[in-house]
């Protein structure tokens, strides 16, 4: 049964986790995501689950590693500085091929930075924030509804590919209240967890590890992980398009800024400009082909980010020489969130330059 609710994005993500069957949560307080541990500390005990407020972000990610190694669905959440601390554990989980969901309601940096909406952790999230050259799927919700839906999707991806999965949002998405239709978890066929430790009984020993010292072992492991990333690129890209069919300028941005860009695109259309919006929902795998097609039709792409230019690099790699790429960024900080009018002005300037 679906329920209609009015909740914060952070609460929606926590609800999505519970609906996805997550019964183990390990976290540490940090703004602006603390609604997630607060919600789960209330809900999980009654569901026969476990909530632990860990001694640190490092403790929390390693508890996630341990719970996940038993085959259980488990989650942690944090915000940028805390996510930096978790990178060691994320790398170990990627190496040992352990599923798990990590929510990053990011803030602005570097260092202690601030708590404002920011997209300065794009590189850290999608390029493998820890050591060792791995990737993890990264999902970028832009609404309360997607915080719920994509959290459930994240658990499925994690189990499907045996990988940690990150949900990347910011305070706009996490703190905003919107209507949520809390649908039941979608049914998806998932592989059995024949690798999970359980106490061997009379059966064969199972070992969850990321150390491979035998001749050629680690190289083969890395190629296998690489092959997995290639499958993700083929099958798991998600993107959303708005008014792109006849567009001569494609605006692209993810997460919070895509909402502002959406309004700006609507305003531009009202002025008669043929402008569309392309929104990557998966940041890894990046929806290269869909973007390349839209960009080739339009001839020009305007990348908007809440940083000094990160996703723009993946946009350039995706579109190649097929389209011109322009960038508009607002680095994070109080008062730096652009208004729709500000983006409309940027669209006007770029639209003039795009006439063919």
């Amino acid at each position, binding site marked *: 049964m679906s329920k209609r609710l009015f909740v914060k994005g952070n609460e929606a993500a926590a609800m999505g986790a519970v609906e996805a069957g997550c019964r*183990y949560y*390990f976290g540490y307080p940090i703004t602006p995501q603390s609604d997630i541990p607060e919600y789960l500390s209330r809900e999980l005990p009654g569901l026969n689950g*476990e909530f*632990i407020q*860990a*001694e*640190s972000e*490092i*403790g*929390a990610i*390693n*508890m*996630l*590693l*341990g*719970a*996940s*190694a*038993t085959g*259980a669905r*488990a989650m942690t959440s944090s915000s940028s500085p805390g996510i930096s601390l978790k990178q*060691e*554990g994320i790398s*170990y989980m990627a190496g*040992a091929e352990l599923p798990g969901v990590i929510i990053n309601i990011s803030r602005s940096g570097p260092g202690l930075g601030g708590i404002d909406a920011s997209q300065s952790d794009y590189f850290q999230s999608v390029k493998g924030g820890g050591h060792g050259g791995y990737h993890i799927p990264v999902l970028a919700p832009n609404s309360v509804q997607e915080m719920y839906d994509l959290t459930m999707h994240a658990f499925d991806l994690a189990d499907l590919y045996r990988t940690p999965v990150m949900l990347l949002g910011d305070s706009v998405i996490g703190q905003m209240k919107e209507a949520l239709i809390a649908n039941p978890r979608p049914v998806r066929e998932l592989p059995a967890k024949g690798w999970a*430790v*359980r*106490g*061997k*009984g*009379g059966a064969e*020993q*199972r*070992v*969850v*590890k*990321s*150390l491979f010292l035998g001749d050629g072992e680690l190289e083969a492991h890395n190629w296998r992980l690489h092959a997995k990333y290639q499958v993700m690129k083929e099958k798991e890209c998600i993107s959303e398009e708005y008014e792109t069919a006849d567009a001569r300028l494609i605006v692209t941005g993810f997460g919070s800024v895509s909402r502002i860009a959406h309004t700006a695109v609507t305003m531009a259309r009202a002025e008669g400009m043929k402008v569309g919006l392309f929104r990557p929902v998966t940041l890894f795998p990046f929806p290269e082909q869909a973007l390349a097609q839209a960009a080739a039709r339009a001839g020009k792409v305007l990348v908007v980010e809440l940083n000094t230019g990160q996703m723009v690099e993946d946009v350039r790699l995706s579109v190649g020489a097929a389209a011109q790429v322009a960038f508009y960024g607002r680095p994070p900080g109080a008062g730096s969130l652009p208004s729709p009018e500000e983006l409309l002005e940027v669209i006007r300037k770029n639209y003039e330059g795009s006439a063919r």
Partner: protein
Amino acid sequence: MQQVFQRPQSLKDVQTHFCPGCHHGTIHRLVADAMDLHGVQDRTIGVASVGCSVFLYGYFDIDVVEAPHGRAPAVATGVKRAKPDSFVFTYQGDGDLAAIGTAEIIHAANRGEDITVVFVNNTTYGMTGGQMAPTTLVGQKTSTSPYGRDKSKDGSPIKMAELMAQLGGVAYSARVAVDSPKHVLEAKKVMREAFGYQAQGKGFSFVEVLSACPTNWGMNPLKANARIGEEMIPYFPLGVIKKEEAAD
């Protein structure tokens, strides 16, 4: 003829990679003996740490999860909470547990996680080549304390078993050595008791084992063995420091 001695069932029939005179082999045997005694091999999940003990899964015939350096108690927490019917132990060295993993061990212990921690103290980093550990004795020369550990700059060696005993969540804390037949027999009894605490659901148990590292101490096995009694035990006294009965 009656067989009076055999390899514990929880131990694999393989050669170890440990150096001559290293005590890890003996300690592995004591851990396996305790698992056998309590009949928990089939439901045990071991948590390996980083250091010479990382190859745990090669020697124990049990399921194993490998933890990042120092994080074994947090990993063990996740395992035990998600699978409370399992028997969970960590096996950690002094650099792993008493330096980089201090936060994880203190808080897992303080929460009273129902796990057992085997702490091997050989006063040095073994795997990385004999650097100064938090347990290195004052005056002891290592590859990063070439003039000897200086108390005024490097601090004093940490007495983990005593530290653990101060925490409310710890049900059992003891220190043993395996440098003589007498000490091995005492260590066996303590290990069995510590594992029994978890088997009976009595809470967090901790066993510190003083251990020789001849290679990194620059000693032959006999001299290294003798150093335990001459230098380590006077600073790290043996015995059961805390033994709580089950909570009502």
